[in-house]
């Protein structure tokens, strides 16, 4: 463990996808991730909030090693990650996906699903693997274990499927778990169970967790820190309390006012929401990417220069010229 206790370090990370016509004529890039930097410590939980097209999924895929970064530095457990050790990175990071049924191969039973990662990475001897499978099933409370081992995914409920996905993510003893909307496809009453489980597992193993969602209202049940992403960049970083009670970036403000709590008063009020849609990532706007929709923009500044990160209050960062 490196001295400063940092598990994952991301510096100026860019991930661009090539756009090709007819399969080989390059016509441009989709700048899906355009300059993101942060550190994550061991055992720390972080939520990344953003809408579709914000870059959160690409960030996740880059951290998982599924997509190589175009520019910038990604360091994991003190080691720099590049094309040569992508496989090593993949083994260290567990992945929990959004669709629990889709994430499980329908033709493999529970035992086989959990065995696969170990077989592929040549981890442990057969007896050790079986023991690990039992261990991890008990941890996610899919008990009695023997009942579940021969079952196929379609025989499990949504909540049970997601538990299995979490179990699979844990089976190789990763140091970091990345979860992409892990509860959005589950019923309301089951979501709590799963969020609970993830919190418990994280604390028990001192795991780093990056949780990606578009639903701000679940954040406080999950992590202390929150990043808000917009158009391939991180626009605000704060702890949950800070974001909810004192959102700084105009986009964060809009996001917060757009999320309803169940309250009948909502039916009598119109929400103050910026019009328009997130920008294209092929030709993003100049300067601050939110400026076309921002009601508080400073002409001449916001539409020309990319805002740097400011820290108006301790540990609360925002990339917005309003706070210069």
């Amino acid at each position, binding site marked *: 463990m490196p001295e400063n206790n940092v598990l994952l370090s991301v510096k100026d990370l860019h991930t661009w996808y090539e756009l090709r016509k007819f*399969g080989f004529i390059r016509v441009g890039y989709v700048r899906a991730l355009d300059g993101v930097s942060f550190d994550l410590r061991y055992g720390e939980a972080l939520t990344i909030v953003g809408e579709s097209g914000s870059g959160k999924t690409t960030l996740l895929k880059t951290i*998982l*090693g*599924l997509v190589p970064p175009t520019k910038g530095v990604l360091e994991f457990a003190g080691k720099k990650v590049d094309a040569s050790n992508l*496989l090593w990175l*993949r*083994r260290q*990071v*567990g*992945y929990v*996906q*959004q*669709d629990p049924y*889709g*994430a*499980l*191969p*329908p*033709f493999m039973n529970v035992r086989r699903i959990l065995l*696969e*990662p170990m077989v*592929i*990475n040549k981890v442990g001897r057969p007896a050790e693997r079986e023991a690990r499978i039992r261990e991890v099933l008990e941890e996610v409370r899919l008990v009695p274990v023997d009942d579940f081992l021969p079952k*196929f995914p379609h025989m499990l409920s949504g909540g049970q499927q997601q538990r299995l*996905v979490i179990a*699979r993510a844990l089976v*190789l003893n990763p140091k970091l778990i990345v979860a992409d909307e892990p509860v959005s496809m589950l019923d309301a009453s089951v979501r709590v169970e799963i969020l609970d489980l993830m919190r418990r597992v994280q604390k028990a193993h001192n795991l780093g967790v990056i949780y990606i969602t578009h639903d701000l209202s679940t954040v406080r049940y999950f992590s202390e820190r929150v990043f808000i992403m917009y158009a391939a960049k991180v626009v605000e970083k704060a702890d949950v309390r800070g974001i909810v009670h004192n959102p700084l970036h105009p986009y964060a403000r809009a996001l917060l006012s757009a999320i309803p709590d169940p309250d009948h008063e909502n039916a009598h009020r119109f929400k103050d929401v910026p019009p328009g849609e997130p920008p294209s990532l092929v030709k993003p706007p100049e300067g601050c990417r939110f400026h076309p929709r921002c009601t508080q923009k400073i002409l001449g500044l916001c539409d020309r220069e990319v805002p740097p990160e400011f820290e108006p209050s301790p540990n609360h960062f925002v990339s917005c010229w309003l706070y210069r």
Partner: protein
Amino acid sequence: MMGFWAVFAELRRHPSAMVGLVIIFLLLVMSIYAVIRIPYSEAVRLWRAGEVVWLENPRNAAPKWYNWFGAGLPETIKIETAAAERTEERVGESTKRVTYRLAFDFPYKRFPQELALFFTSTYTTVPPQLVLSWRTPDGREIPLGTRTVRGVERYVLSGDSTLLRRLGRAPEESLFSDPKNPEQALSGRYELVMDVYTFEPGASLSAKFIVYGRVYGWAGTDHLRRDLSIGLLWGAPIAVAFGFTAAVGIALIQFILSGIGAWFGGALDILIDRLTELRMILPLLPILILVGMLWSRSIWVILATLLMYGSIGGYKTYRAMFLQAREAPYIEAAKAYGAGNFRIVFRYLLPRLIPVLIPSFVLAIPDYVFLEASLAVLGIGDPILPTWGKIINDAYSMGAHFKGLYYWLLEPAALLMITGLGFAMIGFTLDRIFNPRLRSL
């Protein structure tokens, strides 16, 4: 995913599938029986042997069960000197006369097809001679002439033109006709009397007399006197093996190729796609004819050509399905925990579409069975193997449909249809079982 027994239990609920299963089961029994009873080399030998092996069968005889419908067709009767009444007499120094009375009952109203005598004589210098005469049930005696028998000989009485002229009518009819009803045969006990004169000590003659009937066996005979039931029997394993190998081989290769192409994409995908399109414009039949002409018409070569031709096909359909399947989250998850490309293709991608593969290759089996038969009917199939298509080919070229020998055409055709039906019924049911689940592909 359904396990094997789950599928079977599901099949049981569909009556058509059960019928199909029974048909396939019977076919398999037939095939195994054929292979065990008459091994491959033996079957080929028999089938291409020509007349020599089959001489004792009637030519173009109908199946025995025609008589269940009152056809009254005579069966073949064989009498041998070894079993016949024998009297011996010495006539002179070294001359011996042995009289054989070959007696038999002929209870039919229709005439036999042919009459033949098979002789085997042993001697040193002077061959035995014999005098033949015929006795009818109503006591008439008809002399049939004399012969000298040297070694192994076959004397076809019914084809003897001298005898024909003397009797005034074809021997097989005149020898049997009822004087009161000349168009019908007189039923009763007949005798062929053979006086055999040997001129040396140790010389002998044995004979077999065959009254050829008009029915034979379960399936009848063809123009070369071959027992059709052997051909039909052996047609089963050939049809099934050919159909199955072709269908499964082609389907599997197509499947794997599509999976690989769809997964890797890019240049490989485009290459296979173009190859498939190229193959689509090449016609199968001329290629098979060319191969047959220039190389070999053996069924193995046909099968190999078909495999090579067919494997580069069906790409677009499977590929479309694979392209969709490859976006599934569990595949991404597999990449995330370190699975390599080939493991993903073979263990995660291909198994997803096995429910599509299985019904489609079961349904393809009859296609290839019919293809083999069609090639045989057209005359470009394997010339030496007894297959159903070949039998139809023989029947057709010998004008069976003109000569009223319908059994010759209909028996192999019926077997082909039943086979096709069996596989089709199972295939369609499998499709119905597997398909609803595919809607959530």
